[in-house]
């Protein structure tokens, strides 16, 4: 019974018999003691035989249930609890900045009574969360998905790209995507390739701490994202998140050059092999990097290539790894392989011949480094040279994630190996940085 949560069958039967539903006021009599409170849904972990009630002092406790326990209904709950927000009439409304929700921590809200988490996504919710947005730009909220970012797939990127393009054509000067942080850099890279020559930036924003917490990073992040969407001179796919642990400023990271590098810190996202495009502090945007794609004058100049070939395998290399994984990829008819190699782009000896085999079957093998930082160079050591001879494509200083997304994007346009090789090494949106600084 979903409506009760994870209670045991025995308890559910008793509750149903007494006509008790979640949030009703009940009395539990056990061992001569009485407990009065509101019935809470049982989480799906822990002991299913403990009844969870919220006492009048606000605390939740679990009361173990056995055959001698009595449960009595005292009062039905008043009114319905909040549900997910209804869709706004957004098609009618206009706004300079479109905020598209794909889910994630940032767009959730909590019912304080029950502790349940709901997606919170309407213009009203957003203004409620960060009233200061009103002083920056007019917004229109557009709910798209409500998924955890670990469940994102290239199909979702395709839809997001189309939506972004739509919004720009409708006149938005910037499009913000609220997104889970786990795979935000994948999505940001995907949209960087899929949507080019836009009249404004595509801004990905997330939160490491949910907005029900007063300490949430969502507030500063969202405000900074809207500022970026409105005021940035560039039209790139970017990620806006805290620049440091303090609530002082956010960085605007180029999507194809960023990565989530900490599981929990507010400043988990860093620019890798590049300098952040900008810093947003005290309501202003300060450009830090002159290398950017500027806004197009006409919204109709926008170029949409929103297809991704999902059959690409990302393989992390490690001592003793079984090179047969490449054979497996060939047999399963994968269209491309990205290696997250060691150091300058090296693999154990036995793997080289499998790379050769894949290439001979017309499957591009792109080489990146698990060092994350630095440029791949297959000319320096012998193993690298062997890989070149085998036909591998060295991916300069692209992160494994960006190379993966780029290869998926290219393979959706052409399967011709030499064309793929050329396009992987072409710099579309500054995903390759020829000049790495200290």
């Amino acid at each position, binding site marked *: 019974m979903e409506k009760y949560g994870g209670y045991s069958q025995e308890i559910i039967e008793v509750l149903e018999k007494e006509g008790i539903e979640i949030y009703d006021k009940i009395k539990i009599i056990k061992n001569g003691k009485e407990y009065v409170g509101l019935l809470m849904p049982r989480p799906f972990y822990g002991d299913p035989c403990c009844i969870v009630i919220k006492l009048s002092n606000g605390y939740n*406790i679990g*009361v173990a249930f056995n055959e001698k326990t009595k449960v009595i209904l005292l009062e039905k709950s008043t009114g319905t609890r909040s549900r997910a927000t209804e869709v706004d009439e957004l098609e009618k409304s206009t706004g300079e900045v479109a905020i598209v929700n794909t889910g994630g921590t940032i767009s959730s809200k909590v019912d*304080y009574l029950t502790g349940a988490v709901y997606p919170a996504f309407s213009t009203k919710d957003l203004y409620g969360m960060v009233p200061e947005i009103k002083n920056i730009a007019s917004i229109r909220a557009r709910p798209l998905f409500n998924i955890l970012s670990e469940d994102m797939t290239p199909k979702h990127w395709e839809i997001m790209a189309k939506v972004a393009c739509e919004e720009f054509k409708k006149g938005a000067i910037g499009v913000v995507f609220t997104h889970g942080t786990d795979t935000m850099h994948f999505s940001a890279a995907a949209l960087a390739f899929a949507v080019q020559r836009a009249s404004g930036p595509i801004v990905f924003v997330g939160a490491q701490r949910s907005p029900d*917490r*007063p300490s949430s990073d969502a507030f500063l992040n969202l405000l900074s994202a809207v500022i970026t969407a409105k005021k940035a001179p560039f039209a790139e796919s970017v990620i806006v998140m805290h620049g440091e642990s303090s609530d002082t400023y956010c960085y605007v990271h180029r999507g194809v050059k960023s990565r989530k590098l900490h599981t929990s810190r507010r400043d988990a996202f860093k620019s890798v092999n590049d300098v952040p495009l900008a810093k947003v502090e005290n309501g202003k945007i300060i450009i830090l990097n002159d290398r950017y794609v500027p806004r197009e004058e006409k919204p109709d100049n926008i170029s949409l290539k929103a297809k991704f070939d999902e059959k690409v395998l990302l393989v992390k290399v490690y001592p003793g790894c079984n090179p047969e994984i490449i054979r497996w990829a060939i047999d399963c008819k994968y269209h491309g392989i990205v290696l997250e190699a060691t150091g300058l782009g090296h693999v154990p000896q036995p793997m080289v011949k499998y790379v050769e085999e894949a290439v001979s079957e017309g499957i591009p093998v792109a080489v990146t480094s698990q060092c994350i930082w630095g440029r791949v160079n297959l000319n320096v050591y012998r193993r690298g040279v062997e890989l070149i001879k085998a036909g591998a494509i060295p991916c300069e200083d692209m992160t494994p994630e960006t190379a993966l997304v780029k290869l998926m994007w290219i393979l959706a346009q052409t399967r011709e190996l030499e064309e793929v090789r050329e396009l992987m090494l072409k710099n579309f949106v500054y995903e390759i940085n020829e000049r790495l600084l200290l």
Partner: protein
Amino acid sequence: MESIGLKVGIEFHQMLDTKEKLFCNCPTSLVKEFKGSIVRRRLKATRSELGEVDRAAMLEEIRGREYVYEAPHEASCLVELDEEPPHNINREALETALKIALALHADPVDEIHVMRKIVIDGSNTTGFQRTALIALGGYIDIGTKKVPIQTICLEEDAARKISESEGEVVYRLDRLGIPLIEIATAPVITSPEEAELVAAKIGQLLRVIGGVKRGLGTIRQDLNISIEGGGLVEIKGVQYLELIPKVIEYEVMRQINLLKIKKELQERKVDLTKNKVEIVDVTDVFKETECKIIRDSVKRGGKVLAVLLPGLKGVLGREIQPGRRVGTELADYARVWGGVKGIFHSDELPKYGIKPDEVTKVFSVLGGSPEKDAFVLIADKEEKARRALQAVIERAELLPICIPSETRGANLDGTTHYSRPRPGAARMYPETDIRPVRILPEWLEELKKQLPEPPEIKFKKFVEEYGLSRELAQKILLSYRLDLFEKLVKKYPNVSPTLIASTIENILKSLRRDGVPIENITDEHIEDVFDKVSRNMLAKESIPEVLKYLAENPSLSVSEAIEKLGLIKVTEDEVRDYVKEILVKFSEEIMKRGSRADKLVMGIVMKKYRGKLDGALIYRIVKEELERYLHL
């Protein structure tokens, strides 16, 4: 006290002495010198889905503060900085808390759920406190009655405030996350003495069970006080046990005085809500003022705003607690809500450089009468002064109506100051980062075995084994320092247990009656005293003197006190030589009295050596030498 319907409830917050914090693996000690990272944050008052914001939370947001967090590397990690989710609940803390619950005859719950309680004064980096209810019910037996316990909770302590300035508060994160046990009694305590007894008994129980920290600041008491017809007031932060009765007495005094004022104002038919009270700009009145505070404020761009309080002449100056008047209360409100430094009110003027003619002018501008009315003035930035005066008006309006329920802070002299409005229904929701903990009956049985022996058994042991009188045994059983008594008796077997008990119970109390600040005397001081006694380096007659000195100079050690007081013990031989001298000097008298001369000799010798050698030993020496002398 019975007749005024006094009802007091006490909430104890005791720090647990666990190896690691409640939700992370940092040590539970405070750092003296800060070495670490500094992080700046803002906290947003979150709105419930109904769009409400907790009043106390709104207050903090109005202040628009920035919080500066000192994160010492020794005593904090990413969890305290809210940069990492919490770790599993600390097992040691859970065990200690359950043992305490069992000792208080409370019922531990079957499954513990950790909650988030919204707190946005910055003392929790997350904006909430993690707290769990672990037991319900129970009681503490104070001999005359059993005071019921309502709830026992296990929660994390907050960061400690280091400093505060305009728009910014600095906290240190060493204390954040230290486990606290919270014990809340029912509000059935009916006198200050009873309250002190309850506090002593619970404090004693916590110490006897063990696993709790000691020293100033490791236990904090909050009091809920109400009298018939008064308001329900929560007083936070009563630092030490001995202050509790005074705080209660003064709060009762405050409320009784406010009730008297309320009655008078009602008889005078004073009603401030009849007409809207206006805030008026009176900066012009003070164009040429000699009042430095006003001049400086205006120079910095401030204004002087005033508000007329009709019918309140003489009321603002009325004292409601020693050293605190109604005007002092209004100043508290102004400070809390407007952030201003203080107020001026007509009952205390002319003063501070404000002249009589300025006072008259203000009354005139406000349209009030100096014979019947009062006014309040604030000189500060307009926005702050306005907010402050609005709060003053709201508080003044209540004077003929009721005593507001509020949260107050305890001052060191036992008076209290307004701190903030009572928070609304605690905004609490589940802490979903922590799994609920199932408490199985088998575990509780194990813990029960680890509880200390009940008081009846101790009583028997004290009387029969330690030789204490029944009266002293009763007293020490009720003592906050019971555990120290037992420890010292075992540690110093050559010191009389009666001396130890009597020192802890009688001597300290007697010193307190003399006005000695005995709250400065630590367990370590007392132990040190008996260490010296056991090694014959301190005579028992000198104990009160040494303790008094330490109370006034708590940073000194017992050795230093002994030296400073000239109580350095002398050797037997030195005393013996002196006795021999005296015998020769007063030989005539002594020969006359024979063996009854011992009193005379003792008198002379004690004058010189009292406190420098054990009195009984001196007497023995005198008797021996006298005997020898008489037989020569």
